[in-house]
């Protein structure tokens, strides 16, 4: 796969090296401008001697390195790096970026070694891409003129855009439909990695459900996110087959107190009571797995592709819309009063001997206080995927939640929402998946290593 004619001294350590290192861009590359054939990003951008490699462990400055003298107003590219390595994978508590590309993939090989090698390749390429670099050094056009470039190139010249890449394992990676062991991993199948049950009114399209592996790429720029998924898919040809892909164009929740709550496609601020990155105690309780297993420090990703029936919703009177959500449309304040972030008073009496926040209001049924304290970190995205056969817009929410155990943190709540939530009348769930998100890794390791080494 590595072109034989690469001239860069470091280019041999591409993702396929399987060496367990992020890439060949060791510390020696810092601050230097190694002479090499091909165009480094900074050369391409015309930047001179680079200054700081702010990303920890980021050897090469990549496409965005720039001299201090050239600093202009606006965010600096090096400030747009989200560290890939760490105790947890990025893309969970990272302040939600505006764009998402998500893929579910099936593993086609029977070889556990090939699977492991792929994860090493993905780790290396992901670490580089999140720094705004090519998948391999010189991958854009630094290889042979007679070989296809290793990096597909569409993110060349773009800033890192806070790209995060999060990789997960589906239940079907561990056991097949008959419950048979696929890769000798059956014993490591976590009890919490269950199959999603049928929920009332599910109209699932099997082609939008589950998968052996998942890739979640989030970034400020959709081109950066799509580039990341596309290149990981390319690295996996022969080992994996892509089952489905979903683009999200606008975040629907805040995962940091510094972010404003965005609106969903019904025009409402939803998910106000989210778990925030700053709430470390709640994260440990509701999001991170803390059981000493190979999943320790990981989480479970629950995904639902929720079609929102925009046409009928838009004909609902404002009063009805607010009653269904239990919040005001303008400010997102609970109908029991106060501001957006004030706790809803579910007992406050309203007219006709009914509580002012209706018994079937969305905010009531989804609220942790009404679900035995169960809370999740929501990180969903709006999507619009053309039209259906009737000419209505196929748009809605690609719902993503991270929980420490789907059996307690997600499934009971979704059952209740599907059954009782007034909003359900305007929703159709068309896709569904649960993935185990293994913990993060340190530089030199790879995502999922604890599964194979434990």
């Amino acid at each position: 796969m590595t072109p034989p004619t690469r001239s860069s001294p470091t280019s041999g350590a591409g993702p396929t090296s399987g060496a367990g290192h992020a890439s060949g861009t060791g510390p020696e590359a810092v601050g230097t401008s190694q002479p090499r054939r091909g165009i480094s990003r900074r050369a391409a951008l015309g930047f001179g001697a680079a200054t700081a490699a702010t990303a920890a462990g980021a050897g090469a400055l990549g496409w965005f390195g720039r001299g201090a003298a050239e600093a202009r107003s606006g965010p600096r590219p090096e400030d747009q790096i989200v560290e890939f390595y760490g105790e947890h994978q990025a893309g969970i508590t990272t302040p939600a970026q505006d764009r998402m590309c998500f893929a579910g993939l099936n593993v086609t090989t029977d070889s556990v070694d090939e699977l492991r090698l792929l994860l090493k390749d993905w780790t290396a390429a992901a670490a580089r891409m999140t720094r705004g670099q090519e998948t391999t050094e010189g991958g854009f056009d630094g290889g042979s003129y007679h070989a296809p470039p290793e990096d597909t190139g569409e993110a060349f010249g773009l800033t890192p855009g806070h790209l995060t890449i999060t990789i997960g394992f589906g239940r079907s990676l561990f056991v097949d439909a008959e419950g048979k062991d696929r890769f000798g991993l059956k014993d490591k199948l976590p009890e919490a990695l269950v199959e999603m049950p049928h929920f009332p009114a599910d109209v699932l399209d099997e082609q939008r459900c589950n998968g052996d592996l998942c890739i979640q790429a989030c970034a400020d720029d959709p081109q950066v996110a799509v580039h990341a998924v596309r290149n990981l898919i390319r690295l996996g040809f022969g080992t994996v087959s892509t089952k489905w892909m979903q683009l999200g164009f606008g975040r629907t929740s805040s995962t940091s107190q510094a972010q404003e709550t965005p609106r969903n496609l019904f025009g409402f601020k939803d998910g106000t009571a989210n778990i925030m990155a700053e709430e470390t105690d709640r994260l440990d309780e509701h999001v991170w797995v803390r059981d000493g297993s190979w999943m320790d420090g990981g989480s479970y990703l629950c995904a639902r592709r929720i079609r929102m029936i925009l046409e009928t919703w838009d004909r609902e009177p404002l009063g009805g819309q607010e009653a269904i959500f239990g919040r005001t449309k303008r400010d997102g304040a609970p109908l029991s009063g106060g501001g957006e972030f004030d706790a809803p008073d579910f007992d406050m009496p309203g007219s006709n001997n009914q509580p002012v926040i209706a018994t079937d209001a969305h905010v009531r049924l989804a609220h942790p206080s009404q679900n035995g304290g169960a809370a999740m970190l929501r990180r969903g995205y709006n999507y619009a995927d053309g039209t259906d056969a009737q000419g209505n817009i196929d748009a809605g929410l690609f719902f993503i939640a991270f929980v420490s155990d789907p059996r307690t943190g997600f499934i009971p709540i979704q059952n209740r929402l599907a059954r009782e939530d007034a909003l359900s009348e305007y929703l159709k769930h068309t896709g569904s998946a649960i993935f185990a998100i293994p913990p993060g890794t340190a530089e030199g390791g790879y995502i999922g290593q604890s599964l194979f080494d434990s």
Partner: protein
Amino acid sequence: MNRRHILLPAAAAGLGALLLTGCEPNNPSDASGSDRIAVTSSEKECQVAATEAPAGTIRFTVENTGSQVTEFYLLGEDGLRIIGEVENIGPGLSRDLTVTAPEGKYFTACKPGMVGDGIRGDFTVTKAEGGGAEVSADDQKLKDEATAQYSAYVKDQTEQLMTGTEDFAKKYKAGDDDAARKLYAAVRMHWERIEPVAESFGDLDPQLDAREADLEEGQEWTGWHRIEKDLWPPQKGAEGTGADTAGGSDSGEYQPMSDEERTQIADKLVADTKTLYDRTRNMDFTADQLSNGAKELLDEVATGKVTGEEEFWSHTDLWDFQANVDGARIAYENLKPLLDKRDQDLSEKLTVRFDKLQTLLDQHKKGEGFKLYTELSKDEVKELSDAVNALSEPLSQVTEKVIE
């Protein structure tokens, strides 16, 4: 089936669309127009900025400065008759109330905490220059006629539903499947015509009209669609509702119902229909319930019938489609005399679009009924869907016109 209203207690719901009762939620920032009378409802006070207004349309903007939910009323001289009301004004929120009142003496009342008679004040409506007061009295008469007509319609449809269901159940229990299949779609039309009313009974709707995919794991499946599946059983190897919870589909092959199961499920269908029948003998409606009900019927068409999801096994979706349109049209026609006065253009547009949709539906008539959904081409489905959207959009504007 409509899942949205399942949990609404029937007593409070009346009609599924009761979310809006006489109030116009509005944007607080533009609520201070000079023609509006500001009302401030606090814990202990009810400050009304003016104590008189000329006859005709009167607008109040009620701000709740208290810490509990409040309501605001304009009451007649007897202190009992409600001319207009706004409910559920949460703390810190503002709502508008628009009423049309003739010359006379009235009371305003704020009701923080919704207890007692409220904090009352005198209010006088003076003689108007143009004589708008007479208009108001006429409008009330038109509203009363509309709702009385609709009430009679609901009564008639439930009677026919009752008779038809008994007949259907008899045939089904006797194993006369051909006769039962023949009756199925035609009898269901009586249900579909008054669907929002039937659905307002949160206990009955899922028991009578749940589709397989609507069920939760482990939930018992009863009603029309359970029998539908038994009368049009899935072919071997052709399973696929996207649901896997009931009806024996979990294990792959469909198990036909035994005579005993048939009796049980048919008797329950009749018993539940009888309960619906009993509850609909003397229903009172308001004008906005008619208009919202009509809108909901078209929503049902858009999300269930035009997609072929409602009658998954029998594919008789066009019967339901026609029935929903019938029900919406009746509600609209009952309101038409009032709507003609309030917004002639809207009323005319609705007439045209109802006709257009009906013309399309007529093209798919076959014998005494309709083509099966599966006989429609993609283009025909899209054409129907477009006509539904074209009608639904202006139909959703009627409530605002008739509620005052």
